């Protein structure tokens, strides 16, 4: 396992009864990289990332997060990871300020740092106006922003996002994309899943395509185009071609 890798997954397997959701997944994501994990519905993207985030136990395989063995030392591994699911994890009865303080408390962020980061995140994500309102009346996009702020407040080294742009309007989606790129520029590693292929194409350093719980194709956009994966010119062409070839095989 390389010292430069933020995430290394080897031979990951997860079964639910007779169904194998993740089937020997191998994956390496470098530090300071924005990695897009793509795949058709039911390919095993979310299950794999939930295992990495510590929400599921694998049946087999190894996971290393920033050099920490996730299975042997789960608490230390969780300290450097943030997980943002497609359904935002927020509490209706808490305000954004309280929610951010709560998350910071769980990750044991210093109170002074909590306050500084909280105000900055509220400002960046345009939440200052509603900072002291309970989340119960918020739209899905607003809740998504609160959850994103929660994922960022403890300054994780590895940020895992499952469909992060769902429910956001166009201007906020652009804003979030810029925010993620800015974090990557500071050395944070971002792994995201998305069905909006244009986002993956424009945003990511590398792209992995997963099918039936295995990584079937990986590389930069240029590598995917030139590596014989497809003769097409867009990520959509590459993606559909890879999925069709895998189905035929």
């Amino acid at each position, binding site marked *: 396992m390389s010292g430069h890798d933020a995430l290394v997954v080897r031979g990951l397997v997860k079964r639910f009864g007779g169904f194998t959701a993740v089937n020997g997944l191998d994956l390496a994501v470098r530090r300071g990289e924005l990695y897009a994990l793509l795949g058709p519905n039911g390919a095993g993207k979310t299950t794999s990332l939930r295992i990495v985030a510590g929400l599921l136990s694998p049946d087999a395989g190894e996971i290393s997060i920033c050099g920490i063995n996730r299975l042997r030392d789960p608490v230390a591994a969780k300290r450097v990871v943030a997980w943002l699911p497609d359904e935002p994890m927020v509490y209706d009865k808490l305000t954004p300020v309280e929610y951010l303080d709560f998350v910071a408390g*769980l990750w044991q962020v210093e109170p002074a740092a909590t306050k500084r980061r909280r105000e900055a995140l509220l400002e960046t994500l345009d939440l200052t106006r509603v900072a*002291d309102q309970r989340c119960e009346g918020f739209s899905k996009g607003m809740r998504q922003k609160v959850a994103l702020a929660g994922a960022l407040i403890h300054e994780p080294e590895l940020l895992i996002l499952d469909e992060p742009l769902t429910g956001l309007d166009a201007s906020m989606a652009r804003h979030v994309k810029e925010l993620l790129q800015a974090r990557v520029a500071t050395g944070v590693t971002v792994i995201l899943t998305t069905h909006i292929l244009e986002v993956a194409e424009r945003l990511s350093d590398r792209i992995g395509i997963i099918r039936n719980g295995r990584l079937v194709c990986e590389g930069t956009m240029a590598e995917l185009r030139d590596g014989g994966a497809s003769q097409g010119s867009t990520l959509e062409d590459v993606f559909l071609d890879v999925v069709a070839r895998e189905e035929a095989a």
Partner: protein
Amino acid sequence: MKALVSGATRAVLAHEARLSLRGVADMAGPKTAMRPWRIAGVLAVVSTIIFGVSHLLLMTAGQLDPADPRVQITLTINLAFLFVLMISAALDSAAYALYARGDYDLMFSAPLPPQTVLLVRALNVFGFTLAKAGLYGAPMLILLAVQRGAHWLAGLPLILALALSATAIAIGLAMGMVRLIGIRSTRVAAQVAAALAGLLVLVMVQWEAIFGPGPKDALVADYIANPQSLGWQLATLPARAMTGDGVALGGVVACAVLMAVLMFVGLAESFVRNAVLAAGSAATAPVRARRSRASFGASPMAALMLKERRVILRDPWLLSQILMQCIFLIPVAAVTVYRVASGADDASALVPVLIVLCGQIAGGLTWIALSADEASELALTAPMDPRLRARARIGAISWLAVMFAAPPLMLLLVFDAWAGLVSLLGVACAIICGILVNIWHQPRLARTGMIRRRMKSPISVTLMELLALMMVAVALWPLLAGDYLAAMLGALLAAATMAVLYAARPRVPA
């Protein structure tokens, strides 16, 4: 068009029936949705227990001669209690089925008249009310028919008629409450009303045990003096129907059908109007919260505890659920005070009851906390020991259980110090056991928002919790008599039970 509508109606009916069956399957425990034999197994165990209890009750019930005025009055009182409980259960179901299902966009966009939706929802409420009453009442009636004569079978159509009447009354009440206090408050109010009705019946059932047979004797004497008065004729109608009087049974059934028809014809329009309101009730005005000095930063455990407390105290619906869990301690406390103070009872007789009740309350509160957690995965991804998560929940929940257990415990300490001390130890153990059993066995079951769809914890977990609490009571009971060896054996048995329940827990990731 007619065929289309009737087809759509059949589809809605089948859909409701499927959802209801899946609800029952969920109650039976995890992963039983597609395994009818497991549901049948749980129902068989529950039915056997109810048949056994009914048989024991009948053994002490005497001859039950239908001509005996005392029997008529006893039946009348018990049927009145049953009817109040049926209305309270139906009211809760009605408030949910009518306006909290959140599927009206689908229902009203389907090609079927809104009256059909009301009919299907009313049938749903009726089915649940009948099932609940039938589960407890039918075994008793069947045993009565086998042991005392076939005329007791008239009780079965009587329960059907009472369930129909209770459904009509409950739907009328639910719609009235929507009109008076609005959609959002109706379900909370309906649940509180249902709990208060249950509490009232519990107190009334205890009435004779506390105050003796005097009030009932007075009713019997009045009935013997004026059996043909209009008041007594109407009041004893269900009791006479139950003991095989065909005319009385016909009267009760006719009343029930009339009430159901009046409800349906009179309230269909109002139902549609309210349903339109319900569809838009999710939007709420912004609520500002004052910034508190309380800090989330002391430790992950303190952060979790503070979050739990804040979420509970700000949610009237959740608070009402918790209060309903605790409210049943009130009659126990009242009985404790009265019987011990009047010297009618030894204080130690109430210790096992208090232990089991407090443990159940703590378990119920844990179920509420787990299944009402809107972001349970957040704590799972946090860098903290899973044992700390469990301790935080115990810390956040136990203070509520302790608060409600404190008054009867203090009274016991005053009247009988040894019984009080043993109770204190037993209640502490029971609260911890109740919480732990739920933490071990609920996480996979307690899906987000599940509690808002149905309030009951799965039966399998409830049975495990009850087993653990009974073992705690078994361990503590001999201490009252000074039998330390038996107490130690009981403690070992309780510890072994908890160890087995721990080993049998579903695995969750660290």
